[in-house]
């Protein structure tokens, strides 16, 4: 069956905007910027043709002469070479990343003593963890301790602080930290409270999870987050919890996807009931759009219906109730609400479904979030009442991310001793008397206990870049002790851990005792009560973006430039609003001549809080009369990449209803939504689980074409000479659209591995993004041509129908990089043979041959070639990591930094392929399937991207190539790509 679903990338495309039509026909969105190069208008210049030739001749001669003199290159070896370092060979160290927001156990690739890449250490990571290696080299980090904002010496700062801490008698000493996962820090804090008087520890999460924590405390007597096992669940119902995206620690996607393998004939059924279109909603089998205020209503309804056996009042839930009843003990209900009562209902539902100790466990909890907002609010009050003698902060930025940040800042002035241990002189640190800058994760020792039975260790992968000291060491100094490294190893050795092995592996297991939990008491009926509010106000749903998260790593240009998987916009936050609501409020999005997106501006008002000049983005899938707004932006004291980008939404943390005030002006978005469009062809092949079980090749239809030999498929028709790809290796990449969650981790991994520059907002607007791989996001509707003809729907109505569901579209993510065509259209048109084919099935790009005609990019059907319009390194106009001596330390020495005027594109990590073959040759053995990896494949937490040699019949990629679901993108062109896709399977039953 041919799939006649209509897919579109954005609303403008759906509306057949003529500008977008034009875009689809042009490779490069803009006219050549000749006028920018020549200062004056050409016609009015005084430069004659002769002068021009003179200049040309002179510059050519000068350049030639200059190049005759070879520079003297110095080669400076180590004086005493460390044993483990061989220049030119990478070392890997197992360590842990935890910045107060994201936790992951990782491997760090080191070259010549510099960490350059983060790899997964058998666990799930995300884009921010992948990018944290660049945050290490952030030159905005504090370089020395500060005293009253002035650089100071550690000795002086330490003796001052110790002296003043010991003089505090009656008042409290408060340690305000992010959630502490480290058992050794907890033990240090205990020691601190023995030495000094009245020490109290308060934890604070930027995005609070008090609702679920407090509900669990009431239900089970344990203030913790349960562990969830999504792979064991047949039915997953998420009320707004974006567990694939940013809910909690976003490390559930591996587990989630392993329960969704159509090959096994079983896929979990995932319902997402939410307001904003989230990553989880995009991946859900069925998505129901609700307002935030409806959440509790629906949950109460669900609870009543499940506990009493009656039908739900809301018929949107009837299918869910049926499914849940059929899958008792193998379902999961999760909810993002920060309201304790709502979470109590969720607990009760999971309890009556018998999910505890089956698909989730509170006795074996996760410790990833422990913050307590009530205590923080109490602290602010006490600070205002002069009851606090000293405040020490660690991994928190309350002056930025508290909803009552102003109260905090005001109360701070009444605390006699304030100490920050921030990496940056950020919003909070700049208000503090002392700043004792912490080391970056990758410069520190440490440990973590993120969940039951799981422990991991942190080890330094580089000596501290600046005169900083890790927080633990600072605590030890204040305890008149030192050497945290030996403290840590003693700490764990005493507990029976094989220290050397644990440091090597990066993690270890200790059998924890199961937590004592009380059984759930019967749900108090008054919890179920709610007020039905018919207030016709606009509701607000805050969220975290995949790139920026809560803003901890906001000064990381890779993350700023990472397009949001859903909206495809970067370098911004904005309110997302549905098309209907936007129309009612007279808010608009439109494309300007070069295809860039502009939008209206509004003021967001909630009681006395006004956030001015917020851009508006029309977002399909957004609930009507609601707006979404992302946190983590609007940093003022973070660094040059983050300062002034977007608006701070944290003041609205407790706001439920808002008003929008239309204002004059327009906002310029940097959205990659319409970049590199593939001329309206259908790219996605899709089927349902039931159809797939019936016929594994369902949805994977290939057209035939009438020829004089009869009807033939495109790949049976070619005038190319077939090259020999059977001898030696044939590198292939398989991308499974069913497993791809669109999390964009691979995009950052690719950027880190391949020295891809950051180009900045304006260049993104000019459609000149440089990412070698993009994740295309397609919206689709349920209406198909078949359905229309079956139900006798007129063509006009059919197209109307197709547009209607754009209020709640289905979403498909499709990673696209160079497809490495074996009949490559780009290779034929290059006049200088700069792009050629290898006998291993790779399309090679040779920068030093390229003269920049861009014919190849024009002829590429996938639009994956990127042109270096400018020199992005050492250029003050692109003042990002490549224009910074520290930032440049992250560059991969095995990959060239491209210069202006050449095309670049995905090389299928040729540097890794070459290394792989060389290692096999040196050891005299065949290449192993599991060691063949591109970074997109190795970073993929859900194993959606699989790389390997398809001439090796044992390889995974060989099996995937011959799978019924495998298809080539744009197969009718018969460009014979080395990259292929697996059809998207949804569980519609």
């Amino acid at each position, binding site marked *: 069956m041919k799939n006649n679903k209509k897919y579109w990338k954005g609303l403008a495309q759906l509306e057949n905007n003529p500008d977008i039509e034009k875009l689809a026909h042009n490779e490069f969105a803009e006219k050549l910027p000749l006028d920018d190069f020549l200062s004056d208008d050409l016609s009015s210049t005084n430069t004659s043709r002769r002068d021009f030739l003179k200049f040309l001749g002179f510059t050519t001669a000068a350049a030639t002469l200059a190049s005759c003199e070879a520079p003297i290159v110095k*080669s400076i070896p180590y004086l005493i*070479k460390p044993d483990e370092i061989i220049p030119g060979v990478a070392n890997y160290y197992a360590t842990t990343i935890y910045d107060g927001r994201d936790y992951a156990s990782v491997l760090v690739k080191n070259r010549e003593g510099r960490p350059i890449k983060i790899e997964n250490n058998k666990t799930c990571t995300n884009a921010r963890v992948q990018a944290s290696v660049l945050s290490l080299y952030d030159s905005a980090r504090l370089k020395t301790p500060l005293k009253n904002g002035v650089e100071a010496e550690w000795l002086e700062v330490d003796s001052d602080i110790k002296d003043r801490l010991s003089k505090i008698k009656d008042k409290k000493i408060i340690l305000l930290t992010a959630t502490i996962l480290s058992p050794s820090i907890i033990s240090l804090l205990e020691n601190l409270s023995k030495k000094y008087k009245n020490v109290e520890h308060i934890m604070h999460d930027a995005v609070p999870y008090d609702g679920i924590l407090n509900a669990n405390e009431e239900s089970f007597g344990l203030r913790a987050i349960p562990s969830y096992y999504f792979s064991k669940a047949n039915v997953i119902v998420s009320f707004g919890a974006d567990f694939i995206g940013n809910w909690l620690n976003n490390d559930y996607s591996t587990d989630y996807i392993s329960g969704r393998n159509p090959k096994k004939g079983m896929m979990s059924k995932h319902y997402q009931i939410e307001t904003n279109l989230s990553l989880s909603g995009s991946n859900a089998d069925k998505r129901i759009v609700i307002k935030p205020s409806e959440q509790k209503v629906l949950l109460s309804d669900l609870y009543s219906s499940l506990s009493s056996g009656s039908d739900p009042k809301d018929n949107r839930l009837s299918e869910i109730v049926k499914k849940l009843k059929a899958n008792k003990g193998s379902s999961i209900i999760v909810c993002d609400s920060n309201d304790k009562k709502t979470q109590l209902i969720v607990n009760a539902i999971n309890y009556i479904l018998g999910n505890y100790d089956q698909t989730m466990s509170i006795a074996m909890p996760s410790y990833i979030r422990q913050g307590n907002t009530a205590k923080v609010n109490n602290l602010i009050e006490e600070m205002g009442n002069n009851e606090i003698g000293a405040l020490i902060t660690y991994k928190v930025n309350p002056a930025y991310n508290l909803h009552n940040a102003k109260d905090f800042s005001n109360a701070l002035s009444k605390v006699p001793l304030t100490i920050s241990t921030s990496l940056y002189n950020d919003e909070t640190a700049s208000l503090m008397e002392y700043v004792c800058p912490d080391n970056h994760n990758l410069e520190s020792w440490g440990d973590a206990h993120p969940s039951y039975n799981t422990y991991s260790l942190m080890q330094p992968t580089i000596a501290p870049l600046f005169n900083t000291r890790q927080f633990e060491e600072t605590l030890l100094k204040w305890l008149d002790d030192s050497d945290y490294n030996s403290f840590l190893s003693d700490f764990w050795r005493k507990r029976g851990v094989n220290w050397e092995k644990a440091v090597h592996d990066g993690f270890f297991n200790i059998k924890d005792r199961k937590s004592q939990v009380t059984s759930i008491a019967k749900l108090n009926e008054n919890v179920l009560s709610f007020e039905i509010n018919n207030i016709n106000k606009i509701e607000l749903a805050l969220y975290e973006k995949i790139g920026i998260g809560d803003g901890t790593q906001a000064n990381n240009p890779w993350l700023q430039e990472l397009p949001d998987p859903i909206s495809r916009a970067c370098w911004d936050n904005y309110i997302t609003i549905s098309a209907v609501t936007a129309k009612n409020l007279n808010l608009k999005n439109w494309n300007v001549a070069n295809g860039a997106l502009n939008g209206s501006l509004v003021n967001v008002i909630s009681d006395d809080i006004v956030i001015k000049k917020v851009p508006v983005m029309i977002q399909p899938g957004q609930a009507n009369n609601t707006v979404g707004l992302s946190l983590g932006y609007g940093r003022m004291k973070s660094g040059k990449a983050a300062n002034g980008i977007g608006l701070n939404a944290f003041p609205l943390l407790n706001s439920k209803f808002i008003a929008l005030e239309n204002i004059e002006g327009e906002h310029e978005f940097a959205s990659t939504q319409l970049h590199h469009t593939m001329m309206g062809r259908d790219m996605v092949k899709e089927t349902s689980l039931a159809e797939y079980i019936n016929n594994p090749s369902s949805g994977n239809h290939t057209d035939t074409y009438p020829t004089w030999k009869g009807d033939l498929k495109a790949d049976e028709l070619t005038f190319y000479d077939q090259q020999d790809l059977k001898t030696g290796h044939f590198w292939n990449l398989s991308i499974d659209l069913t497993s791809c969650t669109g999390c964009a981790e691979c995009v950052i991994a690719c950027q880190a591995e391949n020295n891809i520059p950051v180009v900045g907002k304006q260049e993104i607007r000019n459609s000149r993004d440089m990412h070698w791989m993009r994740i295309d996001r397609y919206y689709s509707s349920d209406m198909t041509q078949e359905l229309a003809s079956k139900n006798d729907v007129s063509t006009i109505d059919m197209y109307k129908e197709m547009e209607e569901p754009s209020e709640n579209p289905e979403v498909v993510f499709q990673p696209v990089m160079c497809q490495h065509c074996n009949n490559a259209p780009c290779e034929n048109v290059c006049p200088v043979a700069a792009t050629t084919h290898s006998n291993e099935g790779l399309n090679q790009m040779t920068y030093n041959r390229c003269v920049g005609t861009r014919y190849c990019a024009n002829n590429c059907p996938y639009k994956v070639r990127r042109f270096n319009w400018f020199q992005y390194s050492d250029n003050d106009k692109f003042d990002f990591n490549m224009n910074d001596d520290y930032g440049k330390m992250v560059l991969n020495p095995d990959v060239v930094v491209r210069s202006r005027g050449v095309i670049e594109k995905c090389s299928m990590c040729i540097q890794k392929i070459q290394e792989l073959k*060389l290692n096999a040759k040196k050891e*005299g053995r065949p290449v192993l399937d599991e060691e063949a990896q591109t970074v997109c494949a190795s970073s993929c937490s859900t194993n959606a991207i699989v790389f390997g040699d398809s001439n090796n019949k044992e390889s995974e990629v060989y099996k995937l190539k011959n799978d019924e679901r495998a298809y080539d993108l744009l197969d009718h062109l018969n460009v014979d790509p080395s990259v292929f896709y697996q059809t998207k399977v949804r569980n519609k039953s």
Partner: protein
Amino acid sequence: MITNHSFNYHKLLVLILTIFSYQLSAADVAKGEQIFKQNCTACHMITDARLVGPGLKGVTDKYEKEWLVKWIRNSQELIASGDERAIKIYEEYNKTAMSSFYFSDDEFSDLFAYLAAPPVEVEPVLATNVTAEESGISNSTIIMIIALILLVLVFVLSSVKNSLKESLGQNTESISEAIIVQKNIFLSNNAFKLFMVLFIAIVVFKFTYDSLMGVGVTTNYQPTQPIEFSHKIHAGINGVDCNYCHTSARKSKHSGIPSANVCMNCHTYINEGAVNGKVEIQKIYDAIGFDSDSRTYIPGYEKKPIEWIRIHNLPDHAYFNHSQHVVVGELECQECHGPVEEMDVLYQYSELTMGWCIDCHRETEVKMEGNGYYTHLHEQLKEKYKGEAITVAKMGGLECSKCHY
């Protein structure tokens, strides 16, 4: 130069004389040398220089043989007996006790014979230095000298011719007049003109082409290094394996410049060279902070890195891996780097141009036997090329992305 020569002759004479005078006990000296090398060299040098213990030059003159035997057999006993000289040495060398050696009387006499008159080694290094200097006149200088001589000859001959003509009463002509006459004859002949123009054009073209193709090609580049390190002494005369210092050549893309701690493996004990004495080796000590007198590292020394000048420079856009060529390709270092073991001052031997790389890839056959990686591939390639030699090029060794990415 002359002094050098005479010095050499002098040494040769000494050598011959020593061989003569000790011919009778020659067998003893050889045995003694063997004993010395097996037992003593860890702590003593045959010269004046101190190692762990004193240098042994002239030791048999300073002390009686009986005393020496006692000392060698058990120095501690001798010290305990209150022997003044023994105590003095013990104090001087930081109370380091010398190990006891129980040689037979014959062995002692062999050893003393050797110590009394160690054979003088002829130093070949100096000799080669001389020849190197002699052949130091470059070809261009020779050509210029010849041209100058020819020019002088022209003047001499023309003046001779003129004076002959004068004596015969004929008209004389100056050189410039002669040239003008010749030029007129030349210009009147068109074929000659054409030939000359073509000739000049070809010469100019060839010159331009060569000089342009030579841009960035630095064959024979021989910079002065911060330390006058001689590969000839290390790799040639002393036969140190290349991989001993360039350890990473087998493991990494870089061959690696040895770190100073590798130098110190030998130079902890060898602090004097034959050519430059202590000066050059001292530079290593200055870098790493080593006190050659006490043979200890100076605590808290501010180390100074040695800034070698890199000779083999590939452009950034070319990827080259040493281990690929050394381990997998089993190439000898000399195939690209030339006769390094004969170079006192290292220079760039090969062109290091892309054409040079490619030529080798076209010609070199891949050694596939015995390497598990190639087993299956070799079968396929044998079938594909049916008996032709399988070169690197045939396996994709000319593809751009093998070196450029």
